[in-house]
Each structure stands twice: as C-alpha cells, then as structure tokens.
C-alpha cells in the first residue's frame, strides 16, 4: 500500500490512539502454512436483512452483509485507522476543505465494468438525491452544494430549484476526483467509510430504484448470488476482485432470522462455522472450556447504555438529584446480569471508537455521596429509618424484552430505593418509546442508549446532548440537555482536524456530561465471536461485523472434525438428513 498524505499531526495521532486500543492477533492465525482457497463459510444472524441497496441499508444485519459486497474509497482498517481502499491515496488541503482522491486503477465491479471517478460521483449523488429514501443524508451536509442538490434552493421568484448535480463532488479525470466542503468537518472522512457512498455498478443508475437492492452489485470481495428473503443470502467469490488471490473463500452462506439457541445447535452440529449471537449460558460454556477459549474473541462495545434524565422537567431539572441518582447506581451489579457481555464504562464514547479512555474518572458509585447529593437537592433521606427522600414516584420509561427494560430497570429501581427515590417502571414498545422520549415534558427518565453510527466521538454527543438537537417532538436529545459550554466545545471539535486537540475537546465534553449528569453512565454491550478450529485468520475488531476478506478454511481439517463428531455417534446411522 502506498503511503497517503494525511496531515501529519492527524495521522500520527490516529496511530497513537489506535495503539492504545490494541488488537489481538487473528483467531486461527497460521504463519507456517500458506492459506487454502475454497470452501463455503456459513454464518447466521438473529435479525433479518432488510435491504442491500447501500443508499438505505443501515440496520445491523444489512450493514454486516453489505460490508462484504461493497468497498468504499476509504475504510477503517483493523486498527481503527482510516485507510484508502478503492482510492489509492487521498489528500486533505491545508484549510481542510478539499479532499482529493486518486482511484486505484483496474478495480472491477461484480458485472465486470471498471470503476471510474464518474461511478463514484454517480453513486454519491444517487444516495443524496432528493427523492432517495436514504435515512441519513445529513451526515454529508458539509459537502459543498449539498443543500441545493438535496433540498433545492429558492430562486428570485421564490420557486424551489433543485440542482441537477452535487457541485462539491468534482471528477478530475478517469481515476481522480476531489470533494469540496463548505466547512471544515472532522467527521467527513468517517462518514466516507459508510456504505451510503460506496461506488455501485452502472445498473444502479442515477436515481434510487426499489428493485435494485435485490441484485446489489459493487466492488467488494463477494458477489450477491441469490437472496431468499428472510431465509438466507448466498454470496460467491468476486473473481475480478482487485486484491489478487483474495478472497480465499468460494462462497458465503448467510442464514437470516435464526434464534440464538438454534445457532448454537447448528454450530455444534457443524452446520455453522461461526457464532456471534450467544446466549448467556452458551457464552459461559465457550469461555470456560479450554478447547473453545482460544477460538473466540471480544468485539469492543459499540454501544453505550445508561439512564437519561429529562433535565427540563421536574424533578430531574434539579442537578443535585441527577448526581444523587448517578452516584446511587452500581453499574457493576447491572452488568453482572449479562456476565462479560455487559461492561461498565466511565464514558459516553464506547470502546470501539478510537480515543475511548477506560481510565477516565467518570461518575462513581458512592452511596454516601449519593445521600449527600440528596440532602443538597433538598430531599434528605435517612437509610436507617427510611424517612425522607424524594416525595412521590418517578416513572422510568423503557422497552420490553431488552436488557435495559428487563434487567437494568429492576436493578436500578432497587438501588435508588436505598437513597429514597421511588421509581416505577413503565415499558412501552420501541416506536412508542421513541415518540414519548422525543417529546418535550413527556418522559422523566428512562433507558438512555446510543449505538455507533460511525466510529467518531461526535456521534455520541451531537445527536443526543446538544441544544441544536432539541425539538418539541421527535428529538433524539431525550435529556433535553442544553449546555452552552458543551455546545461550544462540540462545535469546535466538529471542525478541529488536529487529533490531539480534538481528543482534548471531547474529554472536556465527557467531563461536562459527568458533572451535569444529563445521563447516568453506564454499560456497553459487546459481542463475542467464536469460530471452529478449522477456520483460519479470522479477525475480530470494532470496525467490521464479520470480516471474511482474508479468512480461509482448512477443508481437510473440517472434514475430519465433522467426521469425528458424527461417525463416532451411533445416531449418525439413522440420520437420513446427513451432513450436506
């Protein structure tokens, strides 16, 4: 790979941050023998894939599959660094407003066409087009001409004119393009790693069309072969893949909507090669068996779960009460109901994002301090006589059948009762939860959770804690938290390209959130991934869900392993539906 010329400070800082994240070596790494070609890799997911059109695919399972079908100009590598992929190199101008990309030559789409700069521009415009149902075009609002293209601008007569093209994306020849921004934007490169802007085949055309997602076509290591909706997806090796010799696998078979217990049965029968949706007893089983332990690794948590307090509604407009609540919650106990999968975290920003600091001095569990905060809030409570405390009952809003609803809420309820806060639990369905928490003066407190949209700290503050995000309805800022210093710091950080300075700004944000306590933080939920011993070079990291680009199978070993499991078993004789 050729060196690309990021501003030096940014590049160095990213390296420094990544090294503290540290990644262990791939599962089943073999340096002694060359990788083998061939075989089908079988995986399953609990959820369904809704759509594979990169313009709209943003749910978890769809993202996981599209990672294998599409490549972007730039992507995160295994160390959470942004590296050029379809681009050969990229460059940022000194004012931070122009990004120049030089494309790799000879990259082929699944249909055989060569990737050109025109394809890149077409694909970006297709996603950001006014008629496209893309769920997150505003991620790209810093591209010059975005408003005129996406929303249209009013002309002299007051008529809305929509620009035919996105002016900021400029083709400079067959293999070169640059993107102009209307403002400095540190999140620009992170959002360029998302599938929304992945170059897609010419068959996709210039406008979003409904049917195209059923035969999605990109430049990734695997080509979509067939897709039986809600049942399975089959991908085959892309013969024209730009990295010679890769991928090693011939085929990927992806089963959809498979319950976790069925997945475990199938994994043990040898019908799945990989497991990621683990129930608590399965996890304990695989973690405690010395034969399985080396074959699994943790993905860093990509979510933060905590409690939001509506800071503009009684009684949690009282900052001391919020502090008391936050100090009364023992997150260790909350996390203990999902052993190892739930991890306590001191920060908003989860471990999967470079810059997460596990040693940050965040909110602390301290019952004494909590009682002191209660006194300062004006609700002194005596834990011995159980007199005093917050009068009345506060209502917690959560979602049924979730960790936050069924485990976190009842335990937090027990904990805050000890400092004199009576809490009642109210669980409503997802859509109602969103409607109620998004409304001003509707929800006092409840489950606060955020999952990474893209690996950048801004994603864990701007949409959920900034004044700008507050609306009377449909806001994501359920805490209705409005803090001028936080707003200022976030704005500054958003356009700060110098990584150490940017990291310092986000640390300040973490401090503000800790002290003002719009949220009590919290735990992060992480996934454990495990593979069979015949799977080699499987990498687990925070940037990819199931990364199969360099995985290979030892087919002889697989045959032997499955044979040993089933031929020693007398029941194999009466099994008419034998192993495929």
């Amino acid at each position, binding site marked *: 790979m050729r060196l690309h010329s990021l501003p030096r400070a940014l590049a160095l800082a990213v390296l420094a941050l990544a090294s503290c994240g540290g990644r262990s070596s791939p599962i089943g790494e073999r340096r002694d023998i060359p990788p083998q070609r061939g075989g089908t890799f079988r995986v399953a997911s609990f959820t369904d894939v809704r759509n594979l059109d990169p313009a709209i695919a943003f749910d978890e399972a769809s993202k996981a599959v599209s990672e294998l079908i599409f490549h972007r100009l730039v992507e995160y590598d295994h160390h959470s660094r942004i590296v050029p992929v379809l681009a050969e190199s990229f460059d940022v101008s000194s004012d931070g407003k122009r990004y120049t990309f030089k494309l790799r030559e000879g990259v082929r789409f699944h249909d055989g066409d060569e990737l050109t700069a025109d394809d890149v521009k077409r694909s970006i415009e297709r996603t950001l087009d006014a008629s496209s149902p893309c769920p997150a075009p505003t991620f790209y609002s810093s591209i010059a001409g975005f408003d005129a293209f996406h929303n249209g601008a009013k002309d002299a007569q007051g008529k809305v004119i929509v620009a035919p093209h996105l002016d900021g994306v400029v083709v400079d020849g067959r293999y070169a393009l640059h993107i102009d921004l209307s403002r400095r934007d540190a999140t620009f490169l992170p959002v360029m790693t998302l599938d929304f802007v992945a170059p897609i085949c010419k068959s996709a055309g210039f406008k979003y069309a409904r049917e195209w997602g059923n035969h999605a076509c990109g430049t990734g290591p695997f080509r979509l072969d067939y897709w039986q909706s809600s049942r399975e997806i089959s991908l085959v090796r892309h013969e024209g893949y730009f990295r010679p010799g890769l991928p090693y696998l011939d085929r990927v078979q992806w089963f959809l909507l498979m319950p976790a217990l069925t997945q475990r049965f199938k994994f043990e029968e040898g019908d799945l090669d990989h497991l990621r949706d683990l129930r608590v007893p399965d996890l304990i089983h695989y973690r405690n068996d010395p034969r399985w332990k080396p074959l699994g690794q943790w993905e860093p948590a990509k979510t933060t779960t905590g409690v939001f307090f509506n800071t503009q509604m009684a009684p949690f407009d009282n900052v001391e009460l919020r502090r008391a609540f936050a100090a009364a919650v023992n997150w260790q106990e909350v996390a203990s109901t999902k052993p190892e999968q739930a991890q306590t975290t001191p920060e908003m920003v989860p471990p999967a994002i470079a810059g997460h600091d596990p040693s940050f001095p965040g909110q602390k569990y301290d019952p004494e301090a909590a009682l002191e905060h209660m006194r300062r809030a004006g609700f002194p409570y005596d834990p011995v006589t159980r007199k005093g405390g917050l009068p009345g009952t506060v209502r917690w809003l959560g*979602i*049924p059948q979730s960790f936050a609803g069924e485990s976190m809420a009842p335990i937090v*309820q027990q904990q805050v009762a000890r400092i004199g806060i009576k809490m009642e639990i109210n669980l409503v369905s997802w859509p109602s939860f969103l409607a109620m928490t998004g409304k001003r003066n509707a929800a006092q407190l409840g489950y606060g959770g955020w999952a990474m949209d893209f690996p950048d700290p801004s994603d864990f503050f701007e949409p959920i804690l900034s004044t700008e995000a507050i609306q009377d309805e449909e806001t994501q800022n359920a805490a209705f938290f409005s803090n001028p210093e936080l707003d200022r710091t976030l704005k500054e950080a958003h356009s700060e390209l110098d990584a150490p300075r940017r990291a310092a700004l986000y640390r300040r944000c973490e401090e503000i959130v800790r002290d003002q306590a719009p949220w009590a933080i919290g735990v992060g939920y992480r996934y454990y991934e495990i593979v069979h011993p015949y799977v080699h070079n499987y990498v687990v990291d925070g940037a990819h869900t199931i990364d199969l680009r360099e995985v290979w199978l030892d087919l002889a070993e697989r045959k032997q392993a499955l044979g040993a499991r089933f031929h020693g078993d007398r029941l194999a004789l009466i099994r008419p539906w034998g192993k495929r």
Partner: protein
Amino acid sequence: MDPRALSRFKKNKGAMLGAGIVSFLVLFAIFAPLVVGQDPFESDFAHGRLPVGLPAPPSLRHPLGTDVLYRDQLARLAHGARLSLEIGFAASAISLSVGAAAGIVAGFSRGRSWTLGPLHFGPDDLIMRFVDIGLSFPFLLLVMAIGAALDRTTEVTILLVLGLTSWLGTARIVRAKTIQIRDLDFVVASRALGQRTWVILLRHVLPNVGGILIILGTISIAQMILAESVLSYLSLGLPPPAPTWGRMLFDGQEVYTAAPWLLIAPGAAILLAVLGFNLLGEGLRDALDPKDS
C-alpha cells in the same frame, strides 16, 4: 347446590382431588408470601449468583434457586400465585360470561330476523358479524392501541384486555352448541308446549351448554396465565418487577439450558393449576349434569 349433586360431587374422587388442588393453590397464594422469608423484588448478588454469573441453583437459602436477576425464585412463585391465579380465573370468567350470553342469544335466535327496508337482519347476524370483526381484527394492533390510550398497565387493564378479546371465540363455540341443543327433541317439545323463551334458555339450554363452558373455562385458565406473559412482550403486561408465573417462564427461557429450575417451578405451578381446575370442572359438570338426575 342441589344436595344430590353435592353428594355425587363428594363421591367423585377426581372432583375431590381437583377441589383439593385448587384450595391448596388458593391457600398458597394467600399465605405463602407471608411464610417465605425472602423478598421477591431484591436481587441477592452475594449468595444468589454463581461465580460465572449464572443464577444459583436450589439451596437452603433459596429453596427453588434464584432467577436471572438473582432474586429468590420461591418468593417470586409465591407472590406470583396471587397475580396469576387472579388473572387466569377472572379473565376466564369475563370471557365465559360475555361469550356464553352472546353465543346463547345468537344461537337461539338463529333464523329470526327483522326487516328494515331492503335489509333483513336478526340478532344472530348482528352478534356474529360483530364477533367476526373482532376475531379478524389484528390482536397486536388492538393491544398497541389500548397501550397507547392508557397511561399505565394494571391488573385490571390486563383482565379487561384478555377477557374482552377472548369472549369472541367462546361465543362462536357456544352458539354452535346452542344451535345443536335447540334442535334436540326435548327443547323442540317444550317450545311446542308454549314455554316462555327465557324459561327454555334457563332450564334447558344453559345446563346443556354448561359442560362446554366448563371445558372452555378450564382450558382458558391455562391460556390466560400464559397470555399475560405474551402481553408483557407486547408492552402491555404488568411492568417489572411484578412476578407472574407466565413471565417467570418467559424470563427463564434465555438461560434454561444452564438453569432448568427457572422453567420447572413456574411450569409445574401452571400445570398444577390447570389440572386442578380441570378436575374440579369435570366433577362439577358430572354432578350437575341434568341427564343424570
């Protein structure tokens, strides 16, 4: 109760066993929460949790082990008894009484109609078309609408939701039976003799529908106990930490391979309740059967 029926009931071993089980459950629901020393709402992180992080198996401290939040399973079973039995019994009672009334009226008046201009319709049509609409209406949507309309879920809401959505099926079955009975010889005869309708309904139809009602009732108790836990999945159940048998069963699902006691205890309790009510119902039916007297 008719003394002859009572003595028949007393002689029936199955019926007495059923009565015994039901009274045991009722006593358990009333007194067990007082006897069991543990708090059903308090997680025991010190003793209720295995080092690996699983719920603790049965022990002296926790005779039925602990649940996924490390709370005492016996205490929850005891507190849940009252809720579950109440919900199962009361929701079934609502469903049966409304369903039986609608079904008998519809079935008995079948074929009778009023003319209103070009339209002919009778009570049977009106009731049964209403039942059809109710049965075809998506349960989930209805539950969500009720959930959105209500500020909070209480036991009463659950009773109403379960009772008022389940009488529709009862009505259809009772109607079918009523149509059959209406055409039996003795009913036709008493009609021919000019008996008043309500007398026929009370004397002949109701006792003959009684058997089917008891069957529906006993089966429905089990279904209601389980349905309550499905409601909580649809966000209209009793909110945590309230323990009910159905919920305990569902909560235990995730870890049952490692902690089977989480399914066995509530499962056995539900089964016992169903068996008890079933035997009791069977005995009642036999004791009250008009043809045996």
